[in-house]
């Protein structure tokens, strides 16, 4: 870049020094950055305060009290447990299903390509609307899934409205929406793998399970890692599906981090507790996103190299 010093016909009146130019170009994005960082730090401050919207006069710093209270608060442990459980179950099942489907569709045939495009449709459906669709289908009165459940002997299967099956139901919706995400990334990964190792293995008559565990999986690992971490980051923060489906209920069966923070803020107007919850969730996602970004960058460089 420094080599470019010859500059004739410079348009008049529009001179920006080369040192400043990149800053000028990225300034608007930088301002948005700052605009978002302010409420972030406000959240940190709130989390150290006793702050209830219903009692603004009693607002004061109580330092770590919001956090210390969590240790003895069974509702907090319920939130932590259900969030981790939800994220763990959804990501594990979506990974297994997504990998399976990607392998079924690996060959580039017209039918396979068509199916893989069709399978993107759930992913492109707004999660909140997807939850609504499943809510209609699991309605105890007329829902087609309730009817099908009754056919296989599950009379009065209450889906999201019963504490024992609520988690199962929202996990099912999550799987419906997000399995295609993992599937499509792994499919792209599978199809980009070099063919020689597979041809060599086929020539040597190596068993298929050996090919899968010793060739396919290791070569696919960066894709699997990126897709899994991506999903894990989103899943531990899931709000749309759970809120649209049950609003965290029945009772506090599904009060994952973001739902609990939302309810704390708007229903019990406990801003302090809500902010502390969000900071803890942020710490978890910050830790995960650091691992994620390393993998993601490696994959991105590889993609750029292939281009």
């Amino acid at each position, binding site marked *: 870049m420094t080599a470019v010093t010859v500059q004739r016909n*410079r348009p008049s009146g529009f001179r920006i020094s080369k040192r400043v130019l990149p800053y000028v170009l990225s300034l608007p994005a930088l301002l948005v950055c700052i605009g978002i960082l302010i409420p972030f730090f406000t959240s940190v401050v709130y989390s150290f305060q006793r702050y209830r919207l219903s009692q603004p006069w009693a607002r004061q710093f109580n330092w770590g009290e919001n956090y210390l209270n969590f240790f003895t608060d069974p509702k907090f442990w319920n939130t932590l447990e259900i969030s981790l459980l939800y994220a763990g179950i959804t990501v594990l099942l979506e990974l297994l299903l997504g990998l399976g489907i990607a392998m079924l569709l690996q060959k580039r045939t017209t039918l396979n390509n068509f199916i893989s495009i069709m*399978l993107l*449709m759930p992913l492109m459906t707004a999660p909140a609307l997807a939850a609504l669709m499943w809510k209609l289908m699991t309605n105890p009165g007329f829902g087609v899934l309730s009817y099908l459940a009754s056919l296989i002997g599950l009379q009065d299967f209450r889906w999201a409205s019963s504490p024992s099956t609520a988690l199962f139901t929202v996990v099912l919706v999550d799987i419906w929406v997000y399995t295609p995400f993992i599937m499509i990334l792994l499919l792209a990964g599978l199809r980009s793998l070099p063919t020689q190792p597979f041809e060599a293995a086929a020539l040597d008559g190596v068993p298929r399970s050996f090919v899968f565990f010793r060739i396919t999986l290791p070569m696919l690992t960066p894709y699997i890692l990126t897709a899994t971490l991506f999903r894990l980051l989103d899943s531990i923060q899931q709000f749309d599906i759970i809120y649209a489906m049950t609003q965290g209920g029945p009772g506090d069966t599904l009060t994952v981090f973001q739902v609990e923070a939302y309810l704390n803020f708007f229903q019990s107007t406990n801003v302090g507790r809500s902010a502390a919850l969000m900071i803890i969730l942020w710490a978890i996602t910050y830790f995960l996103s650091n691992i994620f970004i390393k993998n993601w960058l490696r994959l991105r460089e590889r993609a750029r190299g292939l281009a």
Partner: protein
Amino acid sequence: MEHTSLLERILRGVALTLVVIFFMFPIVWIFMMSFQTNETILRIPPQLVFEPTLANYTALITGKLTTMSGTLDIAFMRNLWNSVFLSTTSVAVALLLGVPAAYAFARHKFRGSEDIAFTLLSFRFAPALLVLLPLTLYFQKLGLANTYIGLIWVYQLICLPLILWIVRGYFEDIPADIEYAYRIAGHSWFATFRKIALPLAGPGIAAAGLLAFIFAWNNFVFALVLASADKQPVTVGALAFITSSGIQYGQISAAIVLSITPTLALALYAQRYLVEGLSLGAVKG
């Protein structure tokens, strides 16, 4: 891979069929429900054959729902318009802010460039409510509560990282030598940016814009927290609708169909770029 046994091919076929049924059935079913009256919907067992009616759609479009207890006003078209307006404007703003920044990050290594780029990326993964809850209080003070401007600004949280990181990749793919050659011929950086970089990265920019539109459209939590009824997009509106309209399941289905059709259509159109967009440029399709 070549010599697959008959049994294996059958098993693969069955597995694929099950996969397609699981992922397609809800969409097909809701689509069918949207053409039924409440009487046929409530029938048990569920009907596969029915006389299709457009009544649900006309009720939504005219905004008037006639029931036995009188006419109800439905604000769904308002929600649909809000979705169109919010998503389009947010993407336009994100392109305006993001494309120059992406170009700067791709072409110039300057102090703090990677920090800004990664801070923006980290917004994509931070919990939305962490920022949204204090913002509700700020917005009330600033007079931005329940305004389009406030919402569009917050929507940058989704649109900007996406556009920045995808478009940056496309700019990096353009050999810098082409731009040098044009600069040496005596053109300004701006002319180079406009005549060389932008057209070459054009398809990528368009794809990033389409994806950002889809994500903005599908967003739920921002508008749930920051907007009241008259500014809400379809994702929030449909949820309110299910409680207010009571038992008009056909109309709810029709509303869902109208709400998801735009993103599905755009996704099919832009499917070539979806993999790259979903992975923020880490995987090429």
